[in-house]
């Protein structure tokens, strides 16, 4: 099971192609309201994460994910 800090680093890497170059990421960055991801981009991001971690992220938990920290916390439970 990857540690929390390792998860954060990997999420940052996976997120990069979705972001404008000048954006600075923190664990509190909100995926939709702050980083501007569309719902379609969020689903594509989740697919990349699923491939990378070899897990399936249930749709049921998506409403609980607003920030990068939320995402990492959910991945801790799933990995």
């Amino acid at each position, binding site marked *: 099971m990857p540690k929390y800090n390792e998860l954060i680093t990997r999420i940052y890497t996976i997120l990069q192609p979705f972001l404008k170059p000048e954006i600075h990421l923190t664990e509190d960055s909100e995926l939709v309201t702050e980083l501007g991801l*569309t*719902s*379609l981009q969020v*689903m594509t991001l989740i*697919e990349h994460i699923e491939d990378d971690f*070899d897990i*399936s992220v*249930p*749709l*049921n938990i998506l409403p609980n994910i607003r920030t990068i920290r939320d995402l990492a916390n959910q991945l801790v439970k799933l990995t």
Partner: protein
Amino acid sequence: MSLFDKFQPLIDIRAELDRAGIMPFGAVTEKFLSATEAIVNGHEVILAGTNNYLGLTFEPECITAAKTAIEEQGTGTTGSRMANGTFAEHVKLEQELAAFFDKQHAIVFSTGYAATMGMAATLAGPDDVIVLDADSHASLYDGVRLSGAEIIRFRHSDAGDLEKRLRRLGERIDNTLIIVEGVYSMLGDRAPLAEIAAVKRRYGGLLLVDEAHSLGMLGDHGRGVAEEQGVEDDVDFMVGTFSKSLGAIGGYCVSNHPQLEAIRFAVRSYIFTASPSPSVVASTRAALRLLQERPELRDRLWDNARQLYIGLQERGFQVSPQVSPVVAVTIEDRDQAILWWNRLLEHGAYVNLVMPPASPGDYSLLRCSVSAAHTPAQIERILDAFATLKNSPHPATSHTV
């Protein structure tokens, strides 16, 4: 803050379209001239977006059956199937559906939405898992949300991705329902059902296939994609609608699992709604018989599909990936799609405008559906209407909507 705040984006879009004099959603069909022609929003048009695949909505046998049913049984059943709403004809329709699909059991629902949503909501529950295709219809998404099951989506029509998801489930596969469609409604593409069935055979789970857009369209008997790809025995539950190829309204689920007869009394969208009205049941039964008696309707449907698909390609439009009775033209720019939809109406073709998030990607669609009742000349008129778009200015240089 108020309850209405969340509707503001919709209110804004509506106002924007109103100002531009364009209202593509809720277009009013004022008068029918035939199964394929009507007056829509004041324009005489060829209907090229009605999912009336076999063109049976004005079939004399269906109309006569509906009229007789109204005279003999009244205009409505006024009750649920579990109370006073089961008439002999509902039972006969279920028997005829079971015989047509070569299955042991069938349930008739009041709408296709009630069938797909209800079965998706009921078959799996808390502690179970549903693995569904990412591009599944809204009724299936609504159903799986109601189920309380863990919901996992796999990449659209990607059997390899489905396999990965099933492998990750381990022993939970025994409590897993897989959901896919036969033909997907927006682009008309067919599921690789043979590959999906092979994955299911390897890992397990139960498979539900929504054949709403493929009934009467594919397979030697018109039973859909599962029949066409030779995997009907792998499909545990087949659901669909009467509102497309059968020209009525209503839905069904067929299965060889004897449990379906008990599941019937657990599906809330079956229990807590009035049963289909007698006229609807009668015209559906007539249409189901005609579907079987007139295989030439399928041939005509596919001839028309090919003519429209190839014609649009030749005119330089970006069309959906496979030849299908659903032919979708992809348009990157939303404003251009709206303008073009309106232009098509003015030039005599009614099609469906689909914008994100209803479209599968971040682009818009001018979605056409052809009918066996279209004549080659009518398909040509649809193509002529599309040809005028190539000469129309881009919205950025005309007016903003």
